């Protein structure tokens, strides 16, 4: 068992695959730099991310996998889960060890009985599930200058997957979706989407904890529409059928803090 250390980037992981074939090392334990080394390990091999090598591996993958399989790799990578590294590495190695499939039916990502494939698949599924939840639960507030703002903090890095949806849907309104957990966001100015980061997050006109715009930049009747929405949300519920379990399973509590109908309107206090 040889230990490889990599820098937790997709390029790094692909380079690690390249190295393992180049060095003829079949069984590799892949760790990120700084992780605890296993007992009695040999001197770890430090993988130096190399976009040249990574793109060679990716080209090889394109020959050996269907487009679904490639999509599965890129999407599962967005999960940012530490536990994904090893299965994803094994999966890519397995792809190269078997013959190039003659049809899409035999593309390795379809083999759910393989534990590595299944782990990557499940990661991918979790990411796709959360991107759907972002499409569901993102709530915009309108600022005075006409920009619509939403703050989120998803478990996985799903923003790149949903910007297309929001650009398509709200193509005539400028919007900003900001990821409070990863400290970056996407801004659409009416034409193109660009990713943005802020140097001084404390001076932003919105609160990163509950996503609320400050009262002085909130457009004038936005509060009214928020209240209308809360009223509607309460009115649509059938009291004879109250079912908190179902509600929580479909709309977990961790998303509530940024949602207009759940983060309250009356008790809003402006902090100094």
């Amino acid at each position, binding site marked *: 068992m040889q230990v490889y250390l990599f820098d937790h980037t997709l390029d790094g992981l692909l380079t690690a695959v390249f190295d393992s074939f180049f060095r003829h090392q079949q069984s590799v334990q892949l760790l990120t730099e700084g992780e605890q080394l296993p007992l009695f390990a040999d001197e770890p091999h430090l993988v130096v991310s190399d976009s040249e090598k990574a793109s060679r591996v990716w080209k090889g993958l394109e020959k050996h996998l269907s487009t679904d399989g490639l999509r599965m790799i890129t999407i599962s990578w967005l999960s940012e889960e530490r536990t994904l590294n090893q299965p994803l590495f094994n999966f890519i190695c397995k792809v190269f060890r078997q013959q190039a499939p003659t049809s899409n039916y035999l593309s390795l990502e379809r*083999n759910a009985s393989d534990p590595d494939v*299944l782990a990557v698949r499940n990661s991918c599924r979790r990411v796709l599930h959360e991107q759907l939840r972002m499409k569901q*639960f993102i709530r*915009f507030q309108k600022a005075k200058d006409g920009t619509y703002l939403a703050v989120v903090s998803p478990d996985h890095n799903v923003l790149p997957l949903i910007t297309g949806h929001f650009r*398509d849907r709200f193509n*005539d309104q400028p919007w900003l979706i900001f990821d409070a957990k990863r400290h970056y966001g996407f801004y659409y100015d009416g034409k193109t989407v660009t990713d943005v980061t802020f140097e001084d997050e404390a001076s932003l006109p919105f609160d990163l904890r509950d996503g609320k715009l400050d009262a002085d930049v909130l457009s004038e009747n936005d509060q009214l529409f928020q209240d*209308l929405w809360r009223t*509607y949300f309460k*009115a649509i519920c059938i009291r004879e059928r109250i079912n908190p379990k179902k*509600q929580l399973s479909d709309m977990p509590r961790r998303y509530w803090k940024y949602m207009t109908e759940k983060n309250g309107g009356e008790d809003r206090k402006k902090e100094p």
Partner: protein
Amino acid sequence: MLTEATMEKLRILAESAKYDVSCSSSGTVRKGKAGMVGSTVGGIGICHSFADDGRCISLLKVMLTNYCKYDCAYCINRRTNDIPRATLSVSELVEITMEFYRRNYIEGLFLSSGVVRNPDYTMERLTAIVRDLRTVHRFNGYIHLKTIPGSSQELLMEAGRYADRMSINIEIPKEESLKALAPEKDHRSIFLPMGQIQQGVLENKEDRQKYRHAPRFVPAGQSTQMIVGATQESDRDILMMSNAMYQQPTMRRVYYSGYVSVNTYDARLPVLKQPPLVRENRLYQADWLMRFYHFRVDEIVDEAHTHLDLDVDPKLGWALRHPEAFPVDINRDDYERILRVPGIGVKSAMLIVNSRRFNRITSYHLKKMGVVMKKAKYFITCGELTSAFSQPVVGINELRPERLRPLLLSKAQQKRAAAEQQLMLDFETDASLPV
């Protein structure tokens, strides 16, 4: 300009509309267009929120007005009910819809209305609103429009050009029960517009094959709803009706609404403490079996079983009635047969048939793929002698359905069944016992 009064109106009209259960925003894919707001995503649609009763909020479900000239016994908005009444103005409704949509609160509009003056007048007002939304306010999101029974064909044809989905509720599957509860309605007034919309959709389909840019007509098809538990209809009557509906090419969904006792004073209706939630759930399960699991309606319910079993789901119920169909060989049998195994759904069945091209599938794999082995293990064979999940392998044919059934019930259900079976020893009245 909206005010506090609008909020009160919205509250009243949402409360009036909430007993309509249809919620989906699926069935049509429409990309955003330059100069228009919105898009529809197709697939399973997007649910934007979940109310405290666990039902999804996808569309702004609201009535234009809850004044109604009809007196249907099951309806909260019946003429004789003393409830607050309100009417939203066109500009109010349009503004709320657009602003909610721009804030990503909703996927579109679900517009319904009580019948005022006559059906045509009401339908005309509904049509005017959706026309306004589409042409003046350039709204490109989802619109679900309720059809008013008895409105003219010309109005339906116009409304259908703007709406994505149109629906008209059957409510009661048997006409005599419907007549008893809703004297102003009959089945003709429901099925006639349904047929007209269907005809419109089919004609439109033909047109679009000839002319690519012909405007689409009700692209997401129709849906309908039936009330469960307000009348004496059996599950068989309800499912036969849904089956007949699904035979129509444009009917996409039938919804089942457990009757909530809204009008307790009416002697024609049962007084229920709780809406029949379990029964409603079983009906949805049966509906899913018909739509995704290739079940025929007469396999789910027949003359001998007019009601669905409340203790076990309909798929398990079918499996227990048909031990001859099992065991299913996971590694050999075709997709259709694997789909019939209780505990295996559409997703895991697909995973199984995809994965078994690579290697043999064992029960360990099944567990990892997400199959509910607790149920499935009695109905399958993976070519193993023993496995971690059943040692030794004992299937439905060895156990027999009557002995297997109690094993598959939940703890609470088992207790209830045991209490019913327990023979009561009545010492006081029994004189034959030797003293």
